[in-house]
């Protein structure tokens, strides 16, 4: 079995298809594209397929990843083209890379994700969004209350925000935040907290969020070096 890492994008109405349905979608797509995907053994075999980081409903993405196992392979491009021929509008296979044998799986490799956030027409911020970003980030700690299944807990956002900037020309916010399984941060959560810091409040539907890419860390915890998840694979 060879392991492949597939990068895809998700746009348009497809953002309303949830994570579990995307998995089902790709399972069927593998059969339509006649990818020689590997199956688990047992009475009801399932495809060897795992996703990097679930994407919330309503969020578009230019950098989603999944790993699959295949029993045979002509070339990365062949699989990419075969899959793209059976995709629906809004989902595009961006790259297919072969992973080294010892590669960590997609989900546990995820360290960070980069998002851009723009504003729905009628919800443009009515204050200087740029003005207080640096002050916000310069706080000693950014304490927020997070609701969990067991109740609420207080966490410090600061070590999980790697960058947070505003481009006044394009009127978009860009942020690189922790997306690891232990410290995943939702971008809208940061926005809501920043609005609160500015004495404003953000509504549920104010933001249009796009995940630009998903990263793994090839540096250290102290000196991170974030690279896209498919950096660790190679063309075949």
């Amino acid at each position, binding site marked *: 079995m060879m392991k492949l890492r597939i990068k895809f994008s998700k746009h348009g109405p497809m953002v309303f298809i949830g994570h579990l349905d995307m998995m089902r979608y790709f399972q069927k797509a593998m059969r339509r594209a006649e990818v020689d995907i590997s199956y688990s053994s047992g009475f009801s075999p399932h495809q060897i397929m795992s996703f990097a980081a679930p994407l919330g409903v309503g969020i578009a993405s230019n950098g989603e990843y999944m790993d699959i196992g295949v029993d045979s392979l002509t070339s990365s491009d062949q699989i990419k083209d075969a899959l793209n021929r059976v995709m629906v509008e809004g989902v595009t296979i961006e790259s297919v890379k072969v992973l080294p044998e010892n590669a960590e799986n997609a989900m546990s490799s995820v360290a960070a994700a980069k998002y851009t956030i723009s504003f729905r027409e009628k919800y443009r911020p009515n204050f200087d969004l740029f003005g207080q970003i640096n002050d916000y980030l310069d706080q000693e700690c950014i304490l927020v209350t997070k609701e969990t299944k067991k109740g609420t807990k207080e966490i410090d956002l600061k070590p999980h925000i790697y960058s947070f900037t505003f481009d006044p020309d394009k009127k978009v916010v860009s942020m690189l935040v922790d997306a690891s399984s232990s410290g995943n941060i939702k971008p809208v959560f940061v926005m809501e907290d920043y609005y609160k810091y500015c004495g404003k409040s953000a509504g549920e539907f104010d933001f*249009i969020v796009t995940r630009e890419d998903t990263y793994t860390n090839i540096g250290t915890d102290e000196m991170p070096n974030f690279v896209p998840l498919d950096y660790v694979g190679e063309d075949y």
Partner: protein
Amino acid sequence: MLNDEILLKIEKPACYIGGEVNSVMKDKDNVDIRFAMCFPDVYEIGMSHLGIQIIYDMLNRFEDTWCERVYAPWTDLDAVMRENEIPLFALESQEPIKDFDFLGITLQYEMCYTNILQILELSRIPVWSKDRTDADPIVIGGGPCSYNPEPIADFFDLFYIGEGETMYRRLLDLYKEMKKSGHSRDEFLHEAGKLPGIYCPSLYEVTYKEDGTIATFTPKFEDVPATIDKEMVTELSDTYYPLKPVVPFIKVTQDRVVLEIMRGCIRGCRFCQAGQLYRPLRERDVNVLKNYAFEMLKNTGHEEISLSSLSSSDYSQLPELIDYLIEECNRKKINISLPSLRIDAFSLDVMSKVQDVKKSSLTFAPEAGSQRLRDVINKGLTEEVILNGAREAFEGGWNKVKLYFMLGLPTETRDDMEGIAKLSNEIAKVYYETVPKEKRQGRVQIVTSTSFFVPKPFTPFQWAQMSTKEEFLDKAYIVKEAIKSQLNQKSIKYNWHEADVTVLEGVFARGDRKISEVIYHAYKKGCLFDSWSEYFNNELWLQSFEECGVSIDFYTTRKRSEDEIFPWDFISCGVSKEFLLREWKKALDETISPNCRQACQGCGASGYGVGVCTEEKTGVSL
């Protein structure tokens, strides 16, 4: 398209965005006819229906036509659409239904009737056919319930009676031609009403006797036929079949490739409407089916394939087809699901190959608890056959059995009801006799379910009196108590339904034109999604009947005379009323009829000259 805010607020946005694999996009400026095909229930149910996929595929093969889909918006979106004045739209183009040429609505069960009004109202199409203008789409109904269209006749411009593959091309050609030459809606409907299989309710007049039954049912015009003959595909291997069915993003009820192996049934169970409507039995060629299976699996990527028919064991090429499927599907890691198989050595062998014996259950549908009553309903399944089948299955490792029965069948006595409990007990007994203690994995699990019998048009039981709600519940209670008194009662679980919905089904099934006012009334009071128990509101329905002055008992419990003119008598499904009456009398006489392969009973379907009617008969072996 709905805006993002709405889509994020509602429960299942994926039901309303379209764009699924194999959905068909066309340039609206390059087609002459826009057809919206509707299943008046939620997306997950509508998308699971084979008939719609067949018609969708067929209409989209026509270059001049673009067929799109529309389903009933769930109550959350329904409220949003009314509040924000958003018109109902088709999934593909996301454009309003009101702008279409046709709105086709499939009628699969009676309890979706209020949803038809929801679809029309949200589309801003007048709900009454008589109020529509040239600016409205032609609203056409089809499917099994259109064999008695009268309760909803006033909401429809046309009904298509019979199998959809045959007459749509002519209907669309007529529409195109008449639209081009500037004819009005009424002129088109009149001409359409002359096409075979097409029923235009407004062209007929009904008069009633003092007792409320029909006195006359006649065309208003001389050039309109008095009888509508059903449309039927004569050669099933040479017609439309959707080799690229639409694949939903979300999990739907029927999330698999469906291979329709034949239509019709040879069995002649006297309660069964489908068994009469789709006569004669016609099979699809096995090589055609193999090819369909291969193509459809490839085009959808589904992980499961299922056979569809009324009684798959009667398909003459079943072993060859199943061998092919097992080989092909094992290679591709695809599951095979085999519903409606008779339990015998062959089917048990096949089932042990395609499913996990430990997890799956056996299904028997004796329908009645005693041999006497099974003879009345002509269900050719004896206790011996059931117990033998169960024994073989238990030997093969099965230990779950599902049993289906009906309560309220004609001539039913207390013995018949208690027979349900006894038969369930006998099956459990067979298990304990067959499987030695050390091999048992706990108790055998027998699930006995009863539904309440609803007499249906075009069956020998169309003359039968239906039970009242109270009688139904008493019957269920008798069965429940009888099961409690069985030796193996701990191995038997008993399920029964609420009776309110059944009574309404009974009204709609044999209803006439007076019912439409009641349906409208109930809808206006808030009845919707009546087949969903959490939304069904019996009180509102009872009020509506009362306010409209319509008696429920007239349609359900009333004794009908042999010469009564039924609301559906103007339709011919190929089976004659004389034959049905003969069968009704044989039923009361507790006499069985052989199946179509054994001996022809002269039902009338041989007039089509196809299918089982052309086969040599085997003779009756009793």
